[in-house]
């Protein structure tokens, strides 16, 4: 994590300057200026990211790693430099970053790698990742479906059992239960760094400690943390981590998987095909070491380059400062919402450090109606279960409204949003 500025929060002037870098933010929606509070779903892109991609297609586009010609050499250098940048962004080494289509693909890669280590005729070096009927995979009740369903499916394939750490009423993980659920049978502990619904920042060190004590591997879903706070996978001491480009100012179609090198090199491949093999006969194939082992076929080259441009933009702005800024916005949203009647907030109460995303229920008005009402004012929020049905069920809800901020969000936008929410119940005739 290279920090180039003072670690104090971004100020208003800087935020306004930052906004100029984002073409879409000047867009009108329904004739109103866009108030984009859906960065938790997907973030907007600065000009430098769009230009990096454009520049690639106009000057370097060609197949990487396989061509002997100059264009291919340039493309390969740009592609591998991108890997180095994204590695630096999360404190990893280059060889420890595998490109994926998105974070979901990264989690599925792991779940299939574990099952490939468990099923059929498995090479000796991969057997350490095998799971079976005597083993348990542990997740939490606040997981995004992306960090839940792949593990359910791994259990279906291998006979392993899925267990989970419950969520307290306060929207945090029940750590007493965690200590009971994580035990000698636990082979993998997979959890989210930051909840995409509650905004809760989970105690990674504590959970890693519980996992290490029983020899379990730790998988971190860093989808909501990598974009918003200084992330150092080595300091957190996790074994694997995933995140997505489109949530951190980058393009769609790209994500990354971090894996401790000795683990990645021993993990069996998942997607197979070109560029990840050593020798192929009609009968069998040998595989390259990581990261190539996991990168079959033509890679998302321009997307990797653009994701690296996004990481550079974030590093230059300073992740500490973004995180501090978002803390300010989070409190403003929380406090504003708390003053409105009929609003039920999910997640940690005001005052607790959390991500700048707030999900809430409006008494008597369905979340999709809330969203529609706000949209008519140009305010874009997310409504629904946010791919976390079990968590919503835990709180007796099926859907909530979620506002999520990012480095380009202004106080005025938060205030417009609060004012919008204040009008919802009146509009729908709910007292």
């Amino acid at each position, binding site marked *: 994590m290279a920090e180039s500025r003072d670690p104090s929060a971004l100020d208003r002037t800087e935020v306004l300057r930052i906004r100029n870098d984002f073409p879409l933010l000047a867009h009108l929606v329904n004739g109103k200026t866009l108030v984009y509070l859906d960065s938790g779903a997907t973030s907007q892109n600065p000009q430098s990211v769009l230009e990096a991609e454009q520049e690639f297609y106009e000057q370097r586009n060609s197949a990487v790693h396989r061509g002997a010609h100059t264009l291919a050499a340039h493309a390969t250098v740009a592609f591998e430099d991108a890997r180095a940048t994204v590695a630096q962004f999360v404190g990893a080494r280059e060889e420890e970053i595998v490109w994926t289509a998105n974070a979901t693909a990264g989690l599925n890669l792991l779940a299939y790698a574990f099952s490939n280590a468990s099923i059929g005729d498995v090479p000796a070096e991969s057997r350490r990742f095998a799971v079976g009927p005597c083993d348990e995979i542990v997740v939490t009740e606040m997981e995004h479906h992306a960090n839940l369903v792949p593990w359910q499916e791994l259990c279906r394939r291998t006979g392993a059992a899925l267990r989970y750490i419950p969520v307290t009423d306060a929207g945090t993980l029940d750590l007493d239960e965690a200590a009971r659920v994580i035990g000698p049978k636990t082979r993998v502990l997979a959890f989210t760094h930051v909840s995409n619904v509650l905004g809760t920042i989970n105690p990674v060190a504590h959970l890693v400690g519980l996992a290490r004590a029983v020899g379990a591997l730790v998988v971190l879903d860093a989808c909501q943390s990598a974009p918003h706070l200084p992330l150092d996978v080595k300091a957190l001491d996790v074994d694997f981590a995933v995140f997505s480009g489109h949530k951190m100012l980058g393009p769609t179609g790209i994500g990354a998987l971090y894996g401790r090198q000795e683990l990645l090199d021993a993990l069996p491949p998942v997607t197979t095909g070109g560029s990840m093999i050593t020798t192929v006969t009609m009968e069998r194939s040998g595989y390259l070491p990581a990261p190539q082992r996991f990168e079959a076929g033509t890679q998302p080259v321009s997307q990797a380059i653009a994701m690296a441009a996004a990481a550079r933009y974030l590093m230059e702005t300073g992740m500490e400062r973004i995180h501090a800024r978002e803390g300010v916005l989070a409190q403003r949203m929380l406090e504003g919402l708390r003053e409105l009647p009929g609003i039920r907030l999910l997640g940690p109460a005001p005052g607790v450090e959390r991500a700048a995303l707030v999900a809430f229920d409006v008494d008597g008005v*369905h979340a999709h109606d809330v969203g529609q009402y706000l949209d008519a004012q140009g305010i874009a929020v997310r409504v*629904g279960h946010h791919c976390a049905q079990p968590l919503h069920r835990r709180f007796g809800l099926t859907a909530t409204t979620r506002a999520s901020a990012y480095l380009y969000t202004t106080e005025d936008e938060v205030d417009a949003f609060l004012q919008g929410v204040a009008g919802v119940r009146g509009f729908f005739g709910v007292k």
Partner: protein
Amino acid sequence: MSGLESLYQQTILEHSKARHGGTLSEVAACETAWPEGTGQCHQLNPVCGDEITLRLAVDGGAGDSRVASLEWLGNGCSISMASASMLTDLAEDLTVDELARLIEEFRAVLRSRGTLEGDPEELGDAAALSGVAKFPARVKCAMLAWVAAEDALRQAVSTAA
């Protein structure tokens, strides 16, 4: 906010609270078998997770069979609840063929992206849902009960005497 007001007309907001026909019991909704001449269908909107279970019975023989009762149990946005309520009002006393035609008409309006306007003579209060067609993400909300009714009707007819 004219777009919004065309979507949420007053009659929609009223139906969404009144919920005519929203009286099916949880127990009934969970049954897996029902009398002849009765059909039941569960519909889920995967976008939001909202659900509806609709039960419908028909009366009379092949030529002139009519809707004898319609009840539902569901939870969802104001559009989906209003739509189920309006459908309940409409269905009462219609012949099977009339209801089937009405469902087709409603679907055509909703899928028209705003080019067709529902006829209040035919669709009653549900004509007010015409505005939903301009909000593609909400069309499924308005259709939920109707899709359930279509399937329940098919079942009811096939088991009716």
